[in-house]
């Protein structure tokens, strides 16, 4: 086990070493390849003086807002599409059509429709978060066991009881998958929103500022944070997903 850990560390460490050597020896433009301590120093400076935590909080807040709205709407829409054959036949084709349009391609339209400010960004993130939840919820509702449905009918459940006590619980693993994907998409969308919509606080804004000022250390810092948050979100979502899907075949 530890041998694997050691092996795994070789390449990253090698990469860092090469980087350090190249930047120190001056073979590369220091703006493009800043020495590692420069990145660390920038990170420290940002964290202590430029309100890095504030930027991160702003990005996360936007992310969560868009995600919660999108996921909630997604579960509602997915349930409706899963329960009603008519709704499915009416709306799913159009939805699938709209879904084909790459999410980033919606940004100019959303910008023109929502203007400047947070509303536009949150609308975009909501749209990104909505899609995977709808699809997975619908699938989960559809795959509710027919035996259970018969039992519920025999027990004369009302519509709402059916939804609350039968459909939603049995769709929970699928919904969990949808929510997991939604969290990831929402995070990527919130960074995308910061790139293409008006400037506001956020990690995306930090990366863009780094590119404009030609400060690679800022860009690298932003990327590291991006990856780290993405990883944590993914990790957390996986954990929750496993929690909600007991006994699900691997």
């Amino acid at each position, binding site marked *: 086990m530890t*041998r*694997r850990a050691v*092996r*795994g*560390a*070789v*390449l*990253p460490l090698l*990469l860092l070493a090469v980087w350090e050597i190249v930047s120190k020896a001056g073979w590369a433009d220091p*703006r*493009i390849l800043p020495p590692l301590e420069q990145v660390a120093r920038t990170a420290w400076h940002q964290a202590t003086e430029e309100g890095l935590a504030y930027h991160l909080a702003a990005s996360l807040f936007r992310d969560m807002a868009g995600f919660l709205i999108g996921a909630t709407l997604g579960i509602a829409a997915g349930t409706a599409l899963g329960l009603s054959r008519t709704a499915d*036949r*009416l*709306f*799913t*084709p*159009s939805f699938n*059509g*709209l879904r*084909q*349009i*790459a*999410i*980033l*391609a*919606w*940004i*100019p*339209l959303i*910008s*023109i*429709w929502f203007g400047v400010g947070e509303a536009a960004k949150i609308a975009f993130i909501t749209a990104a978060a909505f899609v995977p939840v709808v699809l997975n919820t619908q699938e989960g509702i559809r795959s509710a066991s027919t035996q259970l449905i018969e039992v519920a009918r025999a027990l*004369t459940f*009302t*519509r709402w009881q059916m939804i609350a006590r039968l459909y939603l619980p049995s769709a929970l693993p699928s919904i969990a998958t949808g929510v997991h994907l939604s969290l990831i998409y929402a*995070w*990527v969308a919130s*960074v*995308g929103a910061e*790139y*293409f919509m008006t400037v506001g606080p956020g990690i995306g804004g930090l*990366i*863009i500022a*780094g*590119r404009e000022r*030609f400060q*690679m250390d800022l*860009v*690298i810092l*932003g*990327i590291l944070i*991006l*990856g*780290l948050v*993405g*990883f944590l979100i*993914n990790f957390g979502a996986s954990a929750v997903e496993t929690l909600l899907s007991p006994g699900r075949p691997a």
Partner: protein
Amino acid sequence: MTAANVIAAANWPRLGLPRGVSDAGVALLVPLTLLGIWAASACFAWLPPQILPAPSEVWAAFLDMAQNGDLSRHVGISLLRVVEGFAAGSLAGLLLGLAMGLSPTVEDYVKPLFTGFAQVPTLGWIPFLMLLVGIGEPLKILVIAKAAFVPVTLNTLAGVRGVPSMYAEVGAIFRFTRWQVLRKIVLPASVPPIFAGLRYGLTHAWLALVAVELLASSEGLGYLLVWGRQMFWLDTVMVAMVLIGLVGFVLDRITAELEKRLQHWRIADGGEGQRA
């Protein structure tokens, strides 16, 4: 029984149309209604024209671009970029996935770095690469390649790993050489998952193309979006959006069809049958 249950349980009369036709009809109901509302809204100016141009204007913009060659130029360059980037990225992904799948040593060394690399979304890599390689064609190809690389590697790895061990045992019985094992057992068995990976890779490649063209381009469909937005030509924006959706859809359909053709190579064990 409540009213809702009664209604739900009732037998609704069938329309009497063949299933396919009635399906298509119902599917078109919502888009056509929206189109109608859209046209009416433009006619009666329910919304200011800068928020919603008339459908006729969008159509006119489309025809205009198709006629003066702009359309084919932009679609062409976007497709070219995707093809080049996807080819590069998936080749690299296939090789790495195979290497990692076949050799646990390689996997031990490479996987952690790869995972870290994969954690950063394509959008995050774009500004980094912009600083490194500028904003010309190499940037686009690199970004698209990266986007395709990750899913192809992962799925290739999973595909190679997913070959049941008894197949390897059969190879041992026949005293296959390494090369023969690869050619006759591993590769054919892992083609379906690899192909799934290629399909994901193409989807991601197309998404990455849109992203990079939005940020730094002088032609292409993403560029059309930017241009339309700057000039407040919502009709151009919409045409570009529809084209992006259409091309993305067609690309996916082609790969889906190819995937279907390769189904007969899928491993069916224990009578589980094949997934359509």
